[in-house]
């Protein structure tokens, strides 16, 4: 389909989607600022354990490694879904979205289990400044991933019922930006929280 053959209406629609893509990109940049400041807060609070447990005593390297794998693979499977959107292959889009959803759910499950275990050990966010910063930073990321999972379900339903129309494809594109962005935030978390904490 070349530009010359498009109707005025189609061209307008494409323009709207491009504007929305930019708007969503600006939102992500704002989100990046939030995460960066939470990272800075965390880094400053690392020594503030108030006599409580340190990261070394609390963090589990295997758990962090597994979470990293789940999120990274889910980023790739979402990429495969995006490719199938371009190919117009509805069934394959749904299949890759489902796989991405399962991987993301696995990630959230591991994180919730980690949090629950820490709180059960008396190392909840109220124990020390260090733990407040930890739960705020990692929890904010976890909430983002959870929102992403809900979004995947909503768009999966739209793909199933409405098909790969231009608005649905455009929404999937923005969800893709969001999902890949969360994986980038996770790089920061394992590189600043877990790995240095367990060194």
């Amino acid at each position, binding site marked *: *389909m*070349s*530009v010359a053959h498009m109707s005025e209406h189609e061209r307008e629609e494409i323009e709207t989607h*491009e504007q929305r893509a*930019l708007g969503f*990109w*600006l939102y992500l*940049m704002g989100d*990046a*600022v939030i995460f*960066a*400041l939470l*990272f*800075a*807060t965390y*880094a*400053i609070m690392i020594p503030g354990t108030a006599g409580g447990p340190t990261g070394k005593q609390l963090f589990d*390297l295997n758990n*962090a*490694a597994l979470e*990293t794998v789940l999120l*990274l*693979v889910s*980023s*790739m499977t979402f*990429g*495969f879904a995006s*490719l199938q959107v*371009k190919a117009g292959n509805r069934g394959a889009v749904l299949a890759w979205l489902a796989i991405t959803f399962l991987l993301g759910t696995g990630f959230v499950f591991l994180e919730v289990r980690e949090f629950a275990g820490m709180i059960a050990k008396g190392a909840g966010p109220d124990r020390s400044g260090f733990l407040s910063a930890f739960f705020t930073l990692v929890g904010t990321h976890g909430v983002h991933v959870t929102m992403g999972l809900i979004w995947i379900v909503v768009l999966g339903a739209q793909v199933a019922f409405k098909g790969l129309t231009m608005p649905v494809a455009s929404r999937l594109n923005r969800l893709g*930006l969001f999902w*890949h*962005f969360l*994986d*980038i935030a996770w*790089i*920061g978390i*394992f*590189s*600043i929280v877990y*790995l*240095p904490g*367990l*060194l």
Partner: protein
Amino acid sequence: MEHPETGHGLRSYVIGFVLAVILSAVPFWLVYTHALPPQRTLLVIGIAAVLQVLVHLRFFLHINFTTTPRENVLALVFTGILLFIMVGGSFWIMFDLHSRMLL
């Protein structure tokens, strides 16, 4: 659609994934094995993280300087500057405070 996809294809995601796996595996492996002294390991973790962020931007988010709209690149660079000021400034103030309070 228009011209053939430049770097948006399957290859892009697979290359990005392989690079990301390597850049994650190296720092994790160093922490697992304690193969290097802590200072060096920290350095490697930092470098691998920066490289991996760039890999993700390039291969997953497809940011480049030719097809990405200029506004998006501009917003990204502006965010980078903001982060430098805010995060750098926070560290400056807090560590200065730390040494003045003789903590």
